[in-house]
């Protein structure tokens, strides 16, 4: 019961969707499944949110180390959830009711997003610039030919995006304009990079096909294992 039904669901769903690709009247089924996915994803968000809440509330009530920060998570979560689920302070609520745009200008939800989530997201990712810089200092040593190719390629891309790089090769005449660093950078991204990306994509596609076949045929069952109560 615990393993057999999910195994049957896996095989039936997988086979039906693959066959649907080749049977035109069933084609819409694939579109419907994409919508099902979106609906299930919301429940997955709720599962994630509920789990986050459960763990953090346990931490707060048992006063474990750093419980104060867990409280910050819980408060932030509830405030954002209340503003979003009930559309509190949404100026469009007066006219459109619950059909009001969640991110309407001036809504408290949008304001809190602009005040908290947007700057935190941007700052978190921009912080990576420092770590990437320090990582590249360690990684970008021309120890062998492979590392040298990597270094030169990244260097050209970076120079091509900067003012200094453009000025440094700006004197070149048109008949050798390929060697202007901005063109070289563009060429590396659009052509040389494309070759490697395609090889990787083809490899990924083959990997996905073989893995999908294993799942659909019921050979791969790791997603059904563990967590048995």
């Amino acid at each position: 019961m615990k393993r057999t039904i999910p195994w049957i669901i896996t095989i039936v769903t997988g086979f039906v969707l693959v066959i649907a690709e080749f049977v035109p009247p069933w084609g819409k089924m694939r579109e419907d499944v994409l919508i099902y996915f979106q609906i299930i994803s919301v429940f997955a968000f709720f599962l994630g949110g509920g789990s986050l809440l459960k763990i953090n509330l346990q931490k707060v009530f048992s006063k474990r180390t750093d419980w104060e920060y867990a409280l910050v998570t819980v408060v932030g979560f509830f405030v954002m959830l209340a503003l979003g689920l009930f559309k509190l302070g949404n100026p469009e609520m007066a006219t459109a009711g619950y059909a009001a745009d969640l991110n309407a200008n001036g809504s408290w939800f949008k304001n809190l997003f602009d005040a908290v989530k947007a700057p935190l997201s941007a700052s978190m990712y921009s912080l990576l610039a420092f770590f990437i810089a320090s990582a590249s200092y360690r990684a970008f040593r021309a120890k062998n030919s492979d590392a040298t190719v990597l270094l030169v390629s990244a260097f050209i891309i970076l120079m091509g995006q900067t003012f200094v790089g453009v000025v440094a090769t700006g004197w070149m005449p048109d008949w050798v304009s390929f060697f202007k660093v901005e063109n070289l950078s563009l060429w590396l991204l659009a052509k040389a990079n494309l070759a490697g990306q395609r090889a990787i994509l083809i490899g990924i596609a083959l990997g996905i096909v073989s893995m999908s076949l294993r799942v659909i045929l019921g050979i791969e069952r790791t997603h059904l294992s563990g967590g048995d109560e």
Partner: protein
Amino acid sequence: MNRKVMIPIASIIVFIGFLLLKFDFEAVDSSQALWDAFIVTAGGFLTLMIFSFLYRDNPFYKFAEHLYVGVSAAYWMCVGFWSNIVQQAIPHLSPWLSEALDQPFLGYKWDYWIPIAFGLLLLTRLLPDSLKIGWLSKWTLAFIVASTAGLLMTANLKANFISQISSTMSLPLLPDWTGFGDFVSNFDLSYGGQFIKMLSNWVIVVGVISGLVYFFFSKEHTGWFGRVSRLGIWVLMVTFGASFGYTVMGRVSLLVGRLTFLFRDWAGIIS
């Protein structure tokens, strides 16, 4: 008063001070003016809190990090709930719920109960362990995994396998060719020139083949096969270098954006 209490109180006082500095007392809509001041002040404080990690892990960073987790989780829950459950599912499930949530009823679609049922089964994981029904969530997991496999298998074969190979192999290796004489007499190294076009196509075709040879592990990489594989490594190194450089530029532009916000919008040092 110990430090654990003093630091948050001092931070709140400084925050309110900045908020007042940013508040436009002459604004007509004082409520929106307060929000505007709050957005800039909170944005500045939270940015500094995140950047404080460059010194070392500290309470300000931990505060911002935990706030980010809580707010992000709730944000995506709300967006998903309104856009997928309320706008997509409910108008096909219940006229009463549609009316209550101010949505137009678009007619019954009984199959929409399938994802709702699977979704509810997924939530059984949140129930207490003593109920012993958490395993029901695996039905949903099985559906998600099988659907992903079923959809991706054929889609990937078409988009990432067949179309990538056909785009590579359909590239002309001698583009705009009108004869060797014309080629030599018009030879130049300009970016859009014939030679560079030709070089680009050769690089793509040879690069893809050698890259694939590198990924082929069923034959030992020795002899001519090893040399082609070696070329494949170089192609991949160029790709990784280009991707790395591009990522660095993306992160740096985000950093510039944050610094511009800090110095212009928040501190008002630059105009």
